[in-house]
C-alpha cells in the first residue's frame, strides 16, 4: 500500500489553520519520514504545475501596470472571483485537518468548519460592497479614506505584514513537509521549489495568474471531495443512515460521535474559536484584496456570495467524508500501526479514506490537490504582501499617492521576490519548530486589528485617527501577549505546567478590547484632526454605499 505517509507532514499542513485543536488531540511533529513515491500524485502534480505555468505566461503578457498586478485589472467576473476566493480560502487544512478532527472527535470537529464558513454571510452583508467601493487595491485603502493617511496606513501595513508573514511560515513549513513526502526531496529543496513556483506565478503574472491558480485549485478540490464523498456513500449503498450507523458502531464514543463534547467541553472555549474564525476571516488582507479584482460593487457582492456557495458545499460534504472516515478506518488494521494508532496520525485520515474508497489513483489525485492548494494560498499571500509594501507603503505613504508607475511595478516585482526569499528562509528556520502558535496568530490578529479598523471606519462616524491607531495597537499587542501566555506557547513551547491564560484563540477578549479602546480614545479626542476625521464620515458613507453615484 502506497499510503504509508508519515505523521508530521499533514499535521503541519493542518496547523496552517486549525492548530490549537490539533494540538489538543494529537501531537504536531516536525519529523517526516520519506515515503514510497506515489507516481500518480507526481504526474497529476506536474500536470498542474505545467498548466499553471502556462497560465502565468499568458497572464504576464497582460500584466503591464500596477493595477493589473494587484487586481488583475479589475476584470475578473463575480463567479470567477467567487471560485478564486474559495480557492484562496479553503486551505489543505480544511480538507485534511477537519476530516482528522471529525475522525477523532466526531461532531466537535465541525466547529472549525462552521467558523470558517460563517464569516462569508457577514462579508456579503457588511463589507463586500462597501470595501469594494472605497478601496482600490488593498483594505488599507479603505481605512485610510477618512483617516490620516500616513499614520493609519503604517499601522494597517504592519498588521497586514504580520498576518501575511505568519500565514506564510505556517504554509511553507506544511508545504515543505508535503513535497518532501511526495517527492522524497530534502526539506530545504522542497521549500525552495515551492517558493520558486509561486514566484514564477506571481512575479510575472501577478493577481491574474494567482486568480487562475486559485480557480483551478478550487475546481480540483471541490471535484476531489465530491468524488471521495460519492465513493464513501457508494460503499454504504448511498444510505446516509447506514453510514452513520456504522460510524456509531466503530467510534469509541458510540452514538455520541454525532454530539458535542468529545474534544471540547467548555462552551467559552468553543466561543473563543468561533469568534476568532468568523471575525478573523473578515480581516484577512489577501481575501479582502480579492474584492478589488472585479469590475464593480455588484460583482464584489456576488463574488462573496459565490464563494459562500463553494465553501458551504465543501464543508457540508466534509460531514460525509469525516464520518465516512470514522466508519471505514476505525479499527481497520490496514491503516493502523501495531500500537493501534492511525498511521501517520489523525491528519492522514482524509488520505487514508481516499485510499480506502478510491485506491491509488484517487489518493494520488487528492495528494496532488492538497499540494496545489498550498501553492494557491501562498500565491494569494505573496500578492497581498507585495501590495502592502509597494502600493500601501511606497506609492501611498512615501510617494503620497503619486508614484512613478514604472518604478512602482518594478518595486512590486522586487518585493514579490523578496517575500519569496523571506518565505524560504523562515520556512527553513522553522522547520523543526512547533509552529502551532504561529498559525493561530493570523486569525486572531486579523480579528483583533483589521476587522475592528475596517468595521469602525465603515460604520462609526465618531472614529478618529488616534482612536483607530490605539485600537489597532491594543488589538495587536493583546493578541500576541495572550497567545504567548496561552496553552500553545506557555505550555507547549516554553514548557510551563499551566498556562497563564486558558484559551488558544483569544479574539473573544482582544476584539472587544480593541473596539473599546478605539471608542474611548476617539470619544476623548478633541484634536483638529479628529474633527476632520468625523466630518469625512458623511462623504465616505455615501460613497461606500452608492459608489460613483454619491
Amino acid at each position, binding site marked *: 500500500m502506497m499510503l504509508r505517509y508519515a505523521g508530521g507532514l499533514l499535521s503541519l499542513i493542518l496547523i496552517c489553520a486549525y492548530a490549537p485543536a490539533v494540538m489538543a488531540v494529537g501531537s504536531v511533529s516536525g519529523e517526516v519520514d520519506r515515503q514510497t513515491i506515489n507516481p500518480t500524485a507526481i504526474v497529476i502534480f506536474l500536470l498542474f504545475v505545467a498548466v499553471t505555468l502556462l497560465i502565468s505566461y499568458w497572464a504576464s503578457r497582460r500584466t503591464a501596470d500596477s*493595477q493589473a498586478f494587484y487586481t488583475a485589472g479589475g476584470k475578473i467576473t463575480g463567479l470567477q472571483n467567487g471560485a478564486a476566493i474559495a480557492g484562496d480560502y479553503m486551505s489543505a487544512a480544511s480538507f485534511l485537518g477537519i476530516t482528522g478532527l471529525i475522525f477523532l472527535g466526531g461532531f466537535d470537529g465541525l466547529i472549525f468548519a462552521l467558523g470558517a464558513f460563517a464569516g462569508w454571510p457577514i462579508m456579503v452583508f457588511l463589507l463586500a460592497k462597501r470595501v469594494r467601493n472605497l478601496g*482600490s487595491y488593498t483594505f*488599507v485603502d479603505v481605512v485610510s479614506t477618512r483617516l490620516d493617511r500616513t499614520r493609519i496606513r503604517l499601522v494597517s501595513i504592519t498588521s497586514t505584514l504580520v498576518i501575511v508573514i505568519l500565514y506564510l511560515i505556517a504554509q511553507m513549513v506544511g508545504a515543505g513537509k508535503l513535497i518532501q513526502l511526495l517527492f522524497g526531496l530534502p526539506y530545504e529543496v522542497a521549500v525552495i521549489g515551492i517558493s520558486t513556483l509561486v514566484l514564477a506565478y506571481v512575479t510575472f503574472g501577478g493577481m491574474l495568474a494567482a486568480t487562475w491558480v486559485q480557480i483551478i485549485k478550487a475546481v480540483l478540490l471541490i471535484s476531489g471531495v465530491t468524488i471521495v464523498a460519492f465513493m464513501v456513500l457508494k460503499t454504504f449503498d448511498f444510505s446516509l443512515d447506514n453510514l452513520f450507523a456504522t460510524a456509531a458502531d466503530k467510534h469509541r464514543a458510540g452514538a455520541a460521535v454525532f*454530539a458535542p463534547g468529545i474534544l471540547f467541553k467548555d462552551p467559552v472555549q468553543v466561543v473563543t474559536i*468561533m469568534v476568532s474564525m468568523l471575525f478573523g476571516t473578515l480581516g484577512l488582507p489577501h481575501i479582502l484584496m480579492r474584492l478589488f479584482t472585479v469590475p464593480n460593487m455588484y460583482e464584489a457582492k456576488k463574488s462573496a456570495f459565490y464563494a459562500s456557495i463553494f465553501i458551504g458545499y465543501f*464543508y457540508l460534504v466534509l460531514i460525509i467524508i469525516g464520518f465516512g472516515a470514522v466508519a471505514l478506518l476505525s479499527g481497520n488494521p490496514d491503516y493502523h500501526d501495531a500500537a493501534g494508532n492511525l498511521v501517520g496520525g489523525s491528519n492522514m485520515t482524509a488520505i487514508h479514506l481516499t485510499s480506502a474508497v478510491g485506491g491509488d489513483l484517487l489518493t494520488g489525485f487528492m495528494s496532488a490537490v492538497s499540494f496545489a492548494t498550498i501553492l494557491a494560498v501562498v500565491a494569494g499571500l505573496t500578492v497581498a504582501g507585495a501590495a502592502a509594501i509597494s502600493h500601501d507603503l511606497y506609492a501611498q505613504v512615501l510617494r503620497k499617492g503619486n508614484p512613478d508607475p514604472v518604478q512602482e511595478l518594478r518595486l512590486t516585482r522586487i518585493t514579490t521576490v523578496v517575500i519569496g526569499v523571506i518565505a524560504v528562509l523562515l520556512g527553513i528556520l522553522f522547520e523543526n519548530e512547533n509552529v502551532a502558535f504561529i498559525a493561530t496568530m493570523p486569525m486572531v490578529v486579523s480579528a483583533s486589528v483589521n476587522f475592528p479598523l475596517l468595521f469602525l471606519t465603515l460604520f462609526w462616524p465618531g472614529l478618529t485617527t488616534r482612536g483607530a491607531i490605539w485600537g489597532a495597537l491594543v488589538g495587536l499587542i493583546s493578541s500576541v501577549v495572550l497567545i504567548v501566555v496561552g496553552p500553545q506557547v506557555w505550555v507547549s513551547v516554553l514548557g510551563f505546567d499551566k498556562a497563564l491564560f486558558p484559551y488558544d484563540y483569544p479574539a473573544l477578549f482582544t476584539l472587544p478590547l480593541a473596539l473599546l479602546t478605539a471608542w474611548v480614545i476617539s470619544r476623548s479626542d478633541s484634536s483638529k484632526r479628529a474633527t476632520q476625521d468625523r466630518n469625512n464620515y458623511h462623504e465616505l458613507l455615501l460613497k461606500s454605499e452608492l459608489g460613483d*453615484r454619491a
Partner: protein
Amino acid sequence: MRHSGTAESRELKVEDQNKAQQAQAVDSKKEHFVRQKTLQRFGFSLVTLTLYFSFALNWTDMGSGLRERLGDTHVTGSLAMFSLLIILFILLEFFFIRYARQQEISQGMTESNNDKSDKSKGG
C-alpha cells in the same frame, strides 16, 4: 430697464433656490436610502450572528435537547443544526442580494454605466 433687471435677478434667485432644493431633495433621498441600507445590513448581520453563536448552545445544558437523535435516524439535532445553519446562511445571502437589488431598482439607485465598468485608481 431697472425693473426688468430686478425681475431677471429674482427669476435667477428662484431658479437657484429650486436647484438647491432639488439637490437637497436628492441628497436627502440618498441619505435616506443609505440609512435604510445600513439598517438592513445590520439586521441581516444580527440574525446571522445570533444563529451562529447559538451553535455554542450545543455545549451547554440549555442545548442538551440538540444532542438527542432525530427520530429513528442517527442524525442528532446538533448535526442537523450544523447543516441547516450553512444552508440558511446561504439563503440569507441570496435574499439579501435579491432584496437589495429590488430596493435599488425601486428607489432609482441602480448603477450607472460608469459604475459598471469603472475602477478608480489610487488610494
